[in-house]
């Protein structure tokens, strides 16, 4: 297992370098340069302004030197300085990370609690009215845009319950009850589509496992259907779900941007959006790099979990 972990960690490094190059080049691919874009919005300017802006964005050196300098800073935990606020990008991201982490985790919990049981139920009642209802509901859940679902729930709350989502975020450590009131609905909205994915995966995986020889053997030994499902099939059917959970982290991190925007939550996603609107390129670059690295590390963790659950993986 140790060898597998080492190999997997090493294999992620070239991709991480590739991601850093892509993020670095993203800002360099802006039509004109970053400086042209910023100056274009600010009116008249002097040569001195252009020079200082080029120096601020590190454009006063060849591209490979720029990348080297930037990567060196990133490796030392320095993601640059926000063009608009003058604050370190890392500090700005970390101050908002708690909200996004809580939202993503909450959505994942919602998805697991709703999707997995429904998937099991659907598989055990295959081709019944219940199965069809659950499957069609999952297709609907996959088709509803996060921002529309959120808007409709807010509308329903205000029309029928005289309720509006709280505006100010409160940390779960400061006031757990109030934090729950703030985060419950956004987590539910963000977790809906993932719940549908989990439901479909659990259903198809359980149906596949139920058709395998070891399940037939368990039945032939005279075990009850309950112990065949829960004792033998269920655990094995959960393995592919781990992979899907890894992929879904990416969806949730992307969806968090929209969810935070609708519910005005001060998370990393909204920080990114604000940076995009204000053309704060260092902040856009830093935030995208941070979110992607987070996604990659989450996937690495999922892969390692997968290997620890399924010995066939680590034995190659």
């Amino acid at each position, binding site marked *: 297992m140790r060898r597998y972990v080492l190999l997997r960690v090493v294999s992620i490094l070239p991709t991480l370098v590739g991601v850093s190059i892509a993020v670095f080049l993203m800002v360099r691919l802006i039509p004109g340069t970053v400086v042209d874009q910023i100056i274009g919005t600010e009116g008249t300017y002097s040569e001195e302004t252009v020079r200082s802006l080029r120096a601020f964005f590190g454009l006063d050196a060849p591209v490979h030197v720029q990348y080297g300098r930037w990567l060196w800073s990133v490796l030392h935990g320095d993601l640059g300085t926000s063009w608009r606020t003058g604050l370190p990008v890392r500090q700005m991201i970390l101050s908002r990370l708690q909200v996004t982490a809580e939202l993503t985790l909450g959505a994942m919990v919602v998805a697991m609690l709703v999707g997995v049981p429904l998937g099991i139920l659907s598989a055990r009642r295959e081709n019944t009215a219940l199965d069809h209802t659950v499957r069609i509901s999952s297709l609907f859940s996959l088709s509803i845009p996060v921002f529309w679902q959120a808007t409709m729930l807010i509308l329903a709350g205000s029309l029928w319950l005289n309720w509006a989502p709280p505006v100010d975020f409160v940390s779960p450590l400061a006031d757990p009850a109030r934090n729950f009131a703030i985060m419950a609905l956004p987590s539910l909205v963000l977790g809906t589509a993932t719940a549908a994915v989990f439901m479909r995966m659990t259903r198809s995986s359980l149906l596949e496992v139920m058709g395998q020889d070891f399940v037939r053997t368990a039945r032939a030994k005279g075990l009850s259907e309950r112990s065949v499902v829960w004792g033998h099939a269920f655990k094995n059917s959960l393995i592919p779900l781990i992979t899907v959970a890894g992929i879904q982290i990416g969806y949730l991190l992307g969806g968090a941007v929209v969810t935070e925007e609708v519910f005005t939550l001060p998370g990393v996603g909204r920080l990114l959006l604000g940076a*995009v609107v204000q053309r704060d390129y260092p902040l856009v670059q830093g935030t995208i790099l941070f979110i992607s690295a987070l996604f990659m590390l989450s996937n690495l963790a999922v892969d390692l979990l997968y290997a620890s659950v399924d010995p066939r993986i680590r034995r190659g």
Partner: protein
Amino acid sequence: MDSVVAASPPAAMSRWRAGLQPTLRNRLVVFGGILVLALIVLAVFAGVIAPYDPTEMKVTDALKSPSWAHPFGTDRFGRDILSRTIYGSRIAFGVAASSIGMALVVGGLLGLIGGYFGGWPDLVIGRVMDIWFSFPTLILAIGIAAMLGPGLDNAVLAIAVVYAPLFSRVARGSVIAERAKDHVVAALGMGAGAPRVVFRHILPNIAAPLIVQASVSLAYAILTEASLSYLGLGTQPPDPSWGTMLNEGRTYLETAPWMSIFPGLAIMLAVLAFNLCGDGLRSVLDPQLRGR
């Protein structure tokens, strides 16, 4: 061996014909297909079907609730929401079709090259795709749209870039499987060149998984365009994109909820239609999923 090589394309044709019957028997595909067709008709004939000009402002009719004159109500400028929703289908389908078309061609070609030639081209393409997959989809689309600037064309490009790796992976896997088959080995043995083998013997046989992927991706492209427009990075006002309309409706949620209800319903229906088609096609074309 001649007969094997010659039989390949007709065999692919008959496989298509054989696949069509179960496809049409699948109620989900038929329902999704009808829905897609209806929405395409709406998009193509928007000029005839829509009762008003979607950008025509009539401030005296601002924020009117649904009525016979305006079945979906009006927005803050007095524009007819029904007409804007109908025209919105043009943008949604236009963006989805062009971006997924680009992704299919570029990604599919890269997958073909990687899968067929193997070696270093496969390694390089595979690594680049790995890097692309390391970005959460919407984050990458936001990043590209942010760098290129908001607008419809840039949204199309952003969505194409985001979804190209999916087609590359699907094409690569299918090509590797197909390349080992007898009819391809026979064609190579007969001295057929790479372009002939790829386009005549491999491509027709790997079209099915690419079509399924395209159908599912169209649904996600509509969602991504709507998300980008909702966030102000896609279609710009006064063009009637469903996402932009929802964004405009946010401020008037309590006073004019119809501004938010109908464009959202339209997105859901369009995405559902493609999801139904993709789901049904997948279950028809993948024997392992048949009946699941």
